């Protein structure tokens, strides 16, 4: 009975820490991104709020919270107000299965550095990623604006298309780790990270995950210069902020998934596991920002062709090749 209470309290503490870290991380990632993009373009980026503009996210949040929360006249009111929460919630929930460190031993109890060690963790990740589509599609549809609708349609089509290579690219990883649990996948990389064994999978996963979280060069649902702001054109104030935050949290989640599946998670020499994990996540994020500065947006038919005609066949071949090699090896 007492053990149960202690475990519950520990879980709550872990939840609070992870949630706060994620939200703060997402906030300051906006700052890092704007700063880096600025320097990539030989500008300063935000540098007014505090030293180096460090308090820019706070200023942004104050602005978003005090802005008027407008709803378009002909909008589907309930869906319009509801959909931003879908994106923010699903992306926050995604982090629940990500192991971010080695288990700590506290008074003889092992505290795993993961909120929930699901034995079907990967399926959980895919399920929540798919739910995120609803936030985009419903938000775009409920706004009753042509730009939002086009953005929502594009978002739905793109996210559904790229889910397939995303899932298929992870099948070899599951085959190597012989488990759906993210903790087991990290443990299976004790000897070598899976990127060594599965470079093709890694590239496929990174590409399709970039499309899944709608980052440049796959940001067609937003496409500022065609669709104003795509599916969140009509949103203002903190509802827009929720979309925005969902996007940045999903970037952190993507970074941690890449780290967990391919770079050995929290494993690394010399430094503590948590530090290694954070470093790996930030490498992914840095690369994403770099890519945003370097690449133009894909055309819609190029996007679809890349997804269906390139990524999916390669992913299938990769699965077959991995299976054959494992069969020969055993």
């Amino acid at each position: 009975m007492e053990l149960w209470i202690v475990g519950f309290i520990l879980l709550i503490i872990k939840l609070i820490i992870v949630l706060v870290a994620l939200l703060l991380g997402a906030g300051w990632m906006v700052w890092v991104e704007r700063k880096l993009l600025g320097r990539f373009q030989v500008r300063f980026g935000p540098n007014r709020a505090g030293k180096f503009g460090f308090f820019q996210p706070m200023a942004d949040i104050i602005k978003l919270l005090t802005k008027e929360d407008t709803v378009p006249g002909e909008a589907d009111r309930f869906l319009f107000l509801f959909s931003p929460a879908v994106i923010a919630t699903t992306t926050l929930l995604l982090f629940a299965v990500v192991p971010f460190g080695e288990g700590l031993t506290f008074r003889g109890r092992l505290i795993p550095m993961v909120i929930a060690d699901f034995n079907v963790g990967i399926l959980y990740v895919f399920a929540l990623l798919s739910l995120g589509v609803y936030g985009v599609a419903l938000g775009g549809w409920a706004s009753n604006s042509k730009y939002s609708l086009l953005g929502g349609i594009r978002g739905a089509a793109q996210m559904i298309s790229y889910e397939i290579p995303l899932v298929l690219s992870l099948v070899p990883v599951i085959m190597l780790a012989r488990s759906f649990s993210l903790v087991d996948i990290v443990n299976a990389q004790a000897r070598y990270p899976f990127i060594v064994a599965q470079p093709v999978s890694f590239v496929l996963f990174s590409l399709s995950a970039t499309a899944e979280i709608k980052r440049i060069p796959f940001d067609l649902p937003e496409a500022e210069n065609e669709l104003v702001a795509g599916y969140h054109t009509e949103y203002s104030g903190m509802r827009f902020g929720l979309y925005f935050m969902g996007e940045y949290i999903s970037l952190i989640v993507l970074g941690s998934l890449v780290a967990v599946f391919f770079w050995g998670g929290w494993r690394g020499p010399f430094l503590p596991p948590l530090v290694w994990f954070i470093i790996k996540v930030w490498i992914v994020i840095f690369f994403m920002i770099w890519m945003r500065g370097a690449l133009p947006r894909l055309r819609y038919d190029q996007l679809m062709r890349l997804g269906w005609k390139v990524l999916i066949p390669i992913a299938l071949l990769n699965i077959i090749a991995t299976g054959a090699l494992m069969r020969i090896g055993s």
Partner: protein
Amino acid sequence: MKLQENSTGSPWEGLKALASGFFTLFKHLFRYPVTEQYPEYKRTLPARSRARIILTRDPDGDERCVACYLCSAVCPVSCISMQSAEREGGRRYARWFRINFARCIYCGFCEEACPTLAIQLTPDFEFSKDDILKLVYEKEDLLVDHGGKNRDYSFYRHAGVTMVGDKGTHMNELPPVDIKSNFP
């Protein structure tokens, strides 16, 4: 339908182009930004840049404006208004002169139309206000105590005007010809 392919080179060339783009950005990380930090650093604007309008004085310290209404007439947004009056001795001046800077588009037509170089635009653009009515400038706000861009110019000292000095005493003016002694 077969869509036109954009690529013209080999995949290898495409990859090289991609990499060069990424590399250029990476180099930019170590370059100092070219941005001018505005409130701290103010670039000196060209003397002829067009912003806040002033009414200048001639070298004698007198108002140049003769209230001819040309600026008011040429103003495309009708932001200039005035009332002319005449001093003893016949010299015209503006009893009141008003420019509504909330309307002004800083096109500079008034400056071009002005025959006496009285109305001029200056490079000073930092005069935004928290109240739109504060942007209505009266004559005392507009009038300055210098000659603006052409300090030596005085309308009345040039040919054709007999307010200051007699005929033949102005700049670029020949003495008047006695038409009665001009027989062939």
